[in-house]
């Protein structure tokens, strides 16, 4: 196998990462028009996927949270060995933003729990002190009628139609206490879940449910501009500490407000009224 004097492995990487000068680009492009067998030898060792992945900075590819959301959305329509997901008609309770389904729905939801990935760790976490858990919020959109049911995964930044519900799945890489907060514009955070005593969750994937009932959230009660915030804490957090007047709009702000915790956020976007 010969090696090319013009196109080397390092130069190929630099070309794909767009780090060549205009002059270098012109030289390489010109050379690629020549019948160089050594160039073909080099390119045989690269897959097209590697080339097109190399073209993009790693932060342009899917983040961990996005991977979870995209997979959840994509697998929602895939054949499943688990029972079909069904959420029964919600009734408005004490909190207008919440609706609870029947126990059977929760059982069906929990049956979708599958793979755990304990090897995933937050790269920001240091060697000392409690481990910062990694958490992802995976939202689904549900319809209320004819019986409440999941209709699709909610794509990043997409709006929820009026009358639709939100159902949430949590993906947790390390065991942690989980808290779901909401924050309407200009208001303090409010604890949405758990309603009762918080418990430590094992790593894996699960739906938000309590006393055998699946949780559905009415996004209209929160309104556009509100946020849902999930906190994964290595330690139990007192309810009082979960209430804050600060406006939490970014991951960094939430992490600052809840140091040592893994967080994920979901902005509420409602389709405009017609």
């Amino acid at each position, binding site marked *: 196998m010969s090696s090319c004097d013009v196109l080397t492995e390092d130069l190929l990487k630099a070309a794909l990462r767009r780090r060549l000068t205009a002059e270098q680009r012109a030289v390489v492009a010109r050379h690629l028009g020549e*019948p160089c067998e050594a160039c*073909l030898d080099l390119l045989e060792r690269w897959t097209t996927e590697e080339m097109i992945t190399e073209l*993009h900075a790693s932060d342009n590819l*899917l983040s961990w949270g996005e991977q979870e959301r995209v997979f959840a959305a994509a*697998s929602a329509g895939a054949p499943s060995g*688990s029972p079909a997901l069904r959420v029964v008609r919600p009734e408005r309770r004490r909190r207008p933003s919440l609706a609870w389904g029947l126990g059977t729905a929760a059982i069906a939801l929990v049956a979708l729990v599958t793979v755990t990935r304990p090897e995933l760790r937050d790269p920001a976490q240091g060697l000392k002190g409690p481990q910062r858990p990694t958490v992802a919020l995976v939202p689904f959109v549900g319809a209320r009628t004819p019986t409440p049911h999941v209709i699709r995964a909610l794509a990043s930044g997409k709006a929820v139609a009026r009358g639709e519900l939100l159902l949430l799945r949590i993906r947790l890489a390390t065991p942690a206490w989980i808290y779901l907060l909401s924050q309407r514009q200009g208001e303090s955070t409010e604890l949405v879940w758990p309603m009762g005593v918080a418990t430590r969750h094992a790593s894996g994937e699960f739906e938000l449910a309590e006393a055998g009932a699946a949780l559905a959230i009415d996004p209209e009660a929160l309104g556009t501009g509100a946020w849902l915030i999930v906190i994964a804490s290595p330690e139990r957090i007192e309810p009082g500490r979960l209430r804050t007047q600060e406006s939490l709009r970014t991951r960094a702000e939430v992490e600052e407000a809840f140091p040592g915790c893994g967080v994920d956020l979901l902005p509420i976007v409602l389709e405009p009224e017609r």
Partner: protein
Amino acid sequence: MISSAPGEAEESDLVRSAAGGDRAAQRALFDRHRDGVMGYCLLACNRDREQALELTQETFLRALSSLQRLKNQDRFRSWLYSIAANLCRSSGVQDARRRELLALAQLSLDALQADDEPRQRESRITLVQRLLAQVQDPEVRAVVLLKYGEPEHTTREIAARLGLPHGTVTSRLVRFRAAIKRELLRAILEEPL
């Protein structure tokens, strides 16, 4: 560089399990191809990340929900990229240069589909002919024409038809694909920054 780790499940086995509802197999397929598909979609929509994310999601949604209809499990990768390519093509306007770049990427990914639109099929044939003009070896030309012509032949069919060992056919195709990648790289370099 990415390579198949020893002991990794065969893709066709994963496809079969995933089609039967095995979530872990579905996840494994997703993990294997998510960066490539996202990379392709980013390329297709000129690095519009939101659009690429949406197209990636839609690609996997369509692929995972219709796995049972995939007859040849060995062609999962090609089929997946065919879905991505079709979605990207119908998602927006692309200029001539970008279309050329994507056509090369698609060809290189072997993302072929029998039910392509006639216009797409025609432009693919033109592209293959242009690339073949650079190939002198008559044996490679014969293999490529059977592989990318119509009807498309499998490597085993080509080997039988040309009386060549199967390994020779695949190595000729690997060489031709390297030539496609060379053109792809050239197209990338000629893209405005």
